[in-house]
């Protein structure tokens, strides 16, 4: 018994700096980063996000999922001695010595108000809600800014062509971080365009499977009611028997 207790303690020892904040005594390698211009020495193996926390920031903005899915932590940075502005997700990027960085907590863009039931499934849905897509000058700045490495310009071109399927495919992994829109000279809000297009594709271009419709009709007719009634009323003993007797669907 006491063995597994020490085991739990050993596990929590090994993750302490991750779960309670970093203790400088545990750190071997350091780098200097500049948060909004001010220099801080931080452990070399932290992400931009955890390095800011190490430096003493309690994050209220620019931090959501902490795992690369929500787009809250858009960050713009420049490396010492370089002119180029780069962009990254703070939760997914390791700090580098001499990084000058700032977080962009919010992009003041507006999303269209629309009712998906009454939109037409062709290019006009874009010209109606996001007419600025037509102003794209094909400079590819958006693509270079994307921390998900999406072909952002290409999906805008797909929108212009009214090609919903390609648009959905190309923009699917967008986490709506806003970095593309902030850099676009044509002031296109790519992620909103992509989203409108994907929803249109989901609604009109990728129909509901027949087997789902069949199931809905069966449910409507109450076909499974008695089987479910029986399960809800069953004893645990009976449920255990039924559970053990399940036959796993074959892999074919």
């Amino acid at each position: 018994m006491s063995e597994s207790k020490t085991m739990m303690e050993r596990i929590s020892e090994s993750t302490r700096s991750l779960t309670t904040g970093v203790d400088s005594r545990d750190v071997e390698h350091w780098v200097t980063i500049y948060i909004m211009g001010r220099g801080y020495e931080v452990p070399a193996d932290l992400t931009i996000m955890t390095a800011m926390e190490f430096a003493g920031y309690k994050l209220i903005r620019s931090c959501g999922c902490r795992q690369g899915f929500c787009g809250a932590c858009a960050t713009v940075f420049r490396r010492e001695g370089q002119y180029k502005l780069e962009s990254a997700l703070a939760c997914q990027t390791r700090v580098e010595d001499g990084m000058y960085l700032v977080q962009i907590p919010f992009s003041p863009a507006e999303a269209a108000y629309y009712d998906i039931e009454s939109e037409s499934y062709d290019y006009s849905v874009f010209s109606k809600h996001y007419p600025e897509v037509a102003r794209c000058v094909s400079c590819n700045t958006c693509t270079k800014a994307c921390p998900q490495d999406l072909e952002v310009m290409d999906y805008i071109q797909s929108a212009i062509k009214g090609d919903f399927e390609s648009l959905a495919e190309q923009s699917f992994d967008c986490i709506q971080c806003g970095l593309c829109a902030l850099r676009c000279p044509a002031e296109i809000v790519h992620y909103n365009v992509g989203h409108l297009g994907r929803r249109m594709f989901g609604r009109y271009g990728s129909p509901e499977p027949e087997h789902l419709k069949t199931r809905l009709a069966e449910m409507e007719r109450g076909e499974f009611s008695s089987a479910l009634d029986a399960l809800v009323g069953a004893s645990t003993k009976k449920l255990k028997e039924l559970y053990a007797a399940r036959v796993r669907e074959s892999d074919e």
Partner: protein
Amino acid sequence: MSEVKYIGGYPEHMRQSIEIVNRSRAKRKDAVPAAMSAEQRQETLQVHPDYAPGGKRELKIGPNKGDPVPVPVADLLESYPLIDKTDVDLSVADHEVDVMIIGGGLAGTAAALLAQDRGVEREKILLINKLRHGDCNSIMAEGGTQAADRPIDPPDRHFLDTIGGGHYANKPDVVRALVEDAPLVMHWLEELGVVFDKRDNGDYVENWGGGTSARRMHSCRDYTGLEEFRVLRDEFRARRIPSIEHSPAIELTTDASGRVTGAVLYNLETGAYHVVSAKATVLATGGFGRLHIRGFPTTNHYGATADGLVLAYRAGAKLRDADTVQYHPTGAAYPVQIVGFLLTEKLRSAGAQPINKDGEAFVFPLEPRDVEASAIIRECYVRENGITTPSGLRGVWLDTPLIDAIHGEGYIERAFPAMKRMYARFDIDITVDPVLIFPTLHYQNGGVETDPDGATNIEGLWVAGEVSGGVHGKNRLMGNSTLGTMVFGRRAGMAAAEYVRSATGGQRTFQHVESFVNALEGAGVAPERRAPMLLPEYRGKAALARMIDVW
């Protein structure tokens, strides 16, 4: 210290073990270990963090007095409030609404949409968010959503899988609602324009999940939650339903009869409070991964701090199954920047196997999560067959290249873009090399007890999503959570809409808080402990030691 040499993202000593894994792959491809018997499962579970000794204590006060819960949860439930009635003026409401929803994940957003569908005017709905509308666990769901919708898979099969997986502790009538509404939820998402993975013939691609007896996992690449959530949020915004961001609810208000009548919000940036008056409240605040129970890293979003449990418990809500916690078998264990991050179960559905340092497959890849996680812990800490990382963590391999070996080259790229991208950022190519894994704190199995419509034992309070308890029993199956958030978010939204037709607004008081404080004092709880937590503390120890408060 001399710099370590890295090859393809891994230091040399890990690389050596990888070579062994690469060599044993062909042999393992068709020789998957058998699933455990019920007895073997029981034995394996002994090392599970829930069952290993220590880690829990009994609650001293409240509706669940005497029930054991994880210590960090007990500490929060038995905490003093952040404010009392002298801090705020409850008599003036800044917002007067019919339905207030606290927490905008899938559950809360679904509740708002359905409340409006069922007749509540949009201005009479208010969605409260701690951070942005979208900083939530929902957006991170990778693997999929269960729904029994193929001829071979009747809903009673889904019922059995769920209740057996939950160790028969689930509430049967609530499970029934889950499986019965599942096809309906899929239909709803189709109508709203969610793009699911489909076959050429238009059928869904449906995958295995741990503990399921049929393929019923619907996915959107490995961005399932992102796609489902952003569509619901877009619909919410397109309908212009009001919402507030960066302003967590820090206390509920009740009237003399104990009915929930509103909440106090706290603007994280200005420090100002807001009072909301609501005829009905839907609590959808999600889970508690950020409590790092038993010191585990977590997959959860930044704000997963059990606020909803704290608020509801003070108001007298009854909890159930709050003693069990889900540790996901496959959290990242290397590199240190992503420790605890989720590697979706779908990887194992697609054929990836857990492998020890000697290149051996030691467990059936799709045991229920608690069993699978225990087997991995045992392999690392009892059998000593794990690999130790430079930062001192242990883990075993998840053999991702096996997926392409089974399904053909390019499959990982198409089906797991998020996973591939996450590792590529740290120079690791998951199509070529395996990745190191260790269980990570993932999901709050239990929570506030509800009926099949999300109603609680307290008038005026509905609960939906991860903060609720009952539907998953003592262990949730993959894909049942995103499903549950929408099934019960929708039901709670509808039930609240029905309720406000005849309900009137109530007085707003902190009576329930005052009696709770009395009980705390009676139980001798020291006044330092305060909750809700709102956000975890990750600031560096050196920086904290020098912090002073001047205004």
